[in-house]
């Protein structure tokens, strides 16, 4: 529960802000590119919807979460290693990998897909808000575009990606944090390395899953 609170509620604010602005910017930029009068304005909503669901919500949000949650996980475990708290747990006969790392992975698998769903909703809403506020697309047309040619498989794909990314975001930083050797400098290095490696693996997994599932 504690881990769910840390990963879920702790990241909710930044996820919400990013999602709203990503949706808003997507609407404005899509409208900017759609100059042909032959293409209906409601297409903007379709493009924003699919872009947010397929890519921005799962991938971009998870890259941000790799920084927010991943660095926290690496730092926490690194600090526990350096201050011998992990050794103290080992002395008590506790399997520290199961006790410390597994709850983080489980919490990530539970909360990150939920955050991605929230990001999808807020991203689309942000696009609608920006479109209507800027006069790019009326609300009724946006709603019409949202519901036309909707492919539910896209949501399944996005959630599949979010589960894969959740595992990466929790396990990679946990590995780097758990195996820290040294002091504060090494904790910082481990945290940075964890975020970089997580981001690269997220992008790699994104490509692999897209190639396999789409």
């Amino acid at each position, binding site marked *: 529960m504690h881990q769910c609170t840390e990963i879920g509620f702790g990241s909710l604010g930044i996820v919400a802000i990013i999602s709203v602005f990503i949706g808003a910017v997507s609407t404005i930029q899509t409208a900017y590119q759609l100059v042909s009068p032959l293409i209906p304005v409601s297409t903007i909503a379709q493009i924003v919807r699919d872009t947010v669901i397929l890519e921005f919500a799962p991938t971009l949000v998870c890259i941000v979460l790799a920084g927010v949650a991943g660095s926290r996980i690496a730092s926490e475990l690194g600090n526990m290693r350096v*201050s*011998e*708290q992990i*050794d*103290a747990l*080992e*002395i*008590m*006969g506790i*399997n520290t990998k199961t006790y410390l790392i597994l709850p983080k992975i489980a919490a990530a698998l539970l909360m990150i897909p939920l955050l991605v769903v929230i990001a999808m909703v807020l991203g689309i809403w942000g696009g609608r808000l920006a479109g209507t506020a800027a006069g790019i697309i009326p609300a009724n047309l946006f709603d019409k575009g949202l519901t036309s040619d909707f492919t539910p498989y896209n949501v399944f794909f996005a959630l599949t990606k979010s589960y894969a990314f959740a595992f990466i975001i929790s396990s990679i930083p946990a590995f780097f944090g758990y195996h820290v050797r040294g002091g504060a400098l090494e904790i910082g290095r481990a945290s940075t390395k964890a975020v970089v490696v997580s981001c690269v693996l997220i992008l790699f997994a994104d490509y692999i899953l897209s190639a396999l599932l789409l």
Partner: protein
Amino acid sequence: METGRCNLIIGASGSGKTVLMKCMVGLLRPDLGEVYYNGADFTNMDATQKTQIRKEIGMLFQGSALFDSLNVEQNIMFPLNMFTQDSFAEKLKRVNAVLERVNLEGVNKKFPAELSGGMKKRVALARAVVLNPKYLFCDEPNSGLDPQTSLVIDKLIRELTIEYNITTVINTHDMNSVMEIGDYILYMYQGKKEWEGTRKDIIFSKNQLLNDFIFASDFLKDAKDMRMLEETGKIPNERNMDELTRP
């Protein structure tokens, strides 16, 4: 290492004291040799068997190793939660009893960050003994403490060793601790046992490496000077040895 006594491992920094201790408690696997607990080969046990032995081990780390996210009460209750089926009330009673024993009543709800160095060590000691362990390992328990608090910690460790009849093993390079509570002393040099004996033997040792180590301390500088005078026959030795080795 003998039961009911304070067994000290001394040596310069980097001599291998902490590595030896970590091998004893199973945090490190030795390259050669075995560790025996009451005749049982701990080194080659499987994880389940090691867990049974570890229930009987308490360890006081150099940095206390208190869990930051838990308060004092939760830290001390942690081993009880892991290894007993007692009710919360029984566990709390035990926690309060050990806190009283280490003279730290009333700090149950404080977090490690709110404690002084000496208080952290006492909480860590309380956590180490809450399960009435058979073996207590202390890795430089006086590290970072002032002389007065060091004395308090040393006396506490000694009292608990006698009271609970524990086999206590202490890593230290503090000669005050050696002369205060050392019943059996093992001197390490570059990863090997160089000398062993009691605190009385340590003053009269012929081992040059040991002498260079112990007489570097101001505390024993007088002892060294007196020893030189004894060896030259300028002063009788019996009276002086009693004064020097009296705890």
